[in-house]
């Protein structure tokens, strides 16, 4: 509580909140705590690269260097002849990193700040969100490494490019929602964090980072494999990012978009409900 709560009546510290309203309450709480949110994002951005000589350049260099390694593996060792392959890999890495970091930072948000939550009444969703938004800022900075490829490959500059941040935000939103769902459990059972670390490593290969949607389609076709593949919430957004940058159009079926949006929305709705109901008690029991 702070001075702004000052009033003439006694106010319950833990007012009852109906379950179905929790997803909206999380958003209004975040808006109300935007000052703290801004400070935490600034802290995370400052702290991450403050001691590095190259500073924020690392946000651009990281996906670029990884793309060099994967391009080497695929063009030299595997024999891929696609000249746009490095661009596809960079987009895949940026998209996947966005999702994976959102998922891990929000899952760890309670356990990593447990000392603070045991001494201060702070809105816990702010901590789960600040890490996600910090990574979103870094991902947008990372996108600048695509600029040289526009000149090298004469890539089209169209209004569709406006969809690039939308796809990135969808990846971020999905990771954040699932992270909210898992955070109270990860606070109680540390094994969840190990499991998430494993899933993120495995997910890198199961998501379209090194492979593309077209590669998958030409190999497996439209059967049940495709339905299972669309359960991975990164498949459609990463493919969408590639399409808007390269000016292509992958044949993503309507159900693919529907599944992707449903998973993102359900992840957030259930994540917000579980987080608001369980997070406060989870930090007491540690």
């Amino acid at each position: 509580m702070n001075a702004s709560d000052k009033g003439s009546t006694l106010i319950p510290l833990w007012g009852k909140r109906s379950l179905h309203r929790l997803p909206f309450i999380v958003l209004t709480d975040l808006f109300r705590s935007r000052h703290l949110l801004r400070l935490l994002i600034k802290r995370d951005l400052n702290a991450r690269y403050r001691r590095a000589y190259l500073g924020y350049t690392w946000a651009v260099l990281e996906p670029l260097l990884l793309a060099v390694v994967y391009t080497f593996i695929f063009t030299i060792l595997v024999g891929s002849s696609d000249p746009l392959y490095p661009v596809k890999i960079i987009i895949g890495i940026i998209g996947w990193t966005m999702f994976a970091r959102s998922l891990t930072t929000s899952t760890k948000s309670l356990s990593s700040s447990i000392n603070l939550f045991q001494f201060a009444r702070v809105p816990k969703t702010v901590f789960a969100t600040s890490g996600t938004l910090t990574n979103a800022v870094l991902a947008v900075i990372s996108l600048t490494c695509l600029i040289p490829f526009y000149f090298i490959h004469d890539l089209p500059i169209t209004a569709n490019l406006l969809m690039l941040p939308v796809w990135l935000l969808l990846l971020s939103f999905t990771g954040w929602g699932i992270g909210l769902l898992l955070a109270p459990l990860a606070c109680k059972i540390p094994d969840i964090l190990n499991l998430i670390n494993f899933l993120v490593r495995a997910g890198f290969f199961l998501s379209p980072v090194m492979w593309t949607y077209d590669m998958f389609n030409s190999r497996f076709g439209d059967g049940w494999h495709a339905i299972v593949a669309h359960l991975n919430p990164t498949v459609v957004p990463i493919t969408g990012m590639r399409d808007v940058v390269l000016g292509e159009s992958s044949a993503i079926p309507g159900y693919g978009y529907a599944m992707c949006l449903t998973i993102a929305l359900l992840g957030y709705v259930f994540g917000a409900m579980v987080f608001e109901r369980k997070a406060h008690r989870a930090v007491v029991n540690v």
Partner: protein
Amino acid sequence: MTVVMRLEDVTLEYPVPRQYRKEDIQPSGVRNISLEVNQGEVLGIIGRNGSGKSTLLKMMAGVFPPDSGTISARGSVSLLAGVGVGFHKELTGCENAYLYGALMGRTTEQIDGLIEEIQSFAELDHHFDRPIRTYSSGMKSRLGISVATAFRPDLLLIDEVLGVGDASFRKKSEDRVKQLIQDSGAVVIVSH
């Protein structure tokens, strides 16, 4: 007399660790506490280690939710405990003061008005603009106490936190807390 905080039949129990569940061990915590804190009162809570004093204080501060019962408050509540928790080693003393203030629910404008006082009380001089990874533990504690005691709440909750720094800083902190107690609407102090 105006009531600034009311606890009604409040209970919080910590779960018994899994390895002890087969034994007949009663869970620790606090049970069925009812009390009122009035405007202008200084309430002392004493008890042995593990008797639940800090747990009660954390519930009063809204940090821990009770299993049952209700806790109501009027105005701002501030808990003076765990001073310095939330500091980030890569940020400067000044940046950490703003962050710590925000964690206590204060706005940038409110901290702006007190930042010089915070710097001068912490006696950090030019170190205030350096990352706190370069600070000694005493310097970190001085900064923490300086920020934590800079604001005047309607209800101040104190959990024995002032044994830090050298003798002169301890004396200075004690004087500051005494002043804070005088200025705050009501105070609850926990001690052995």
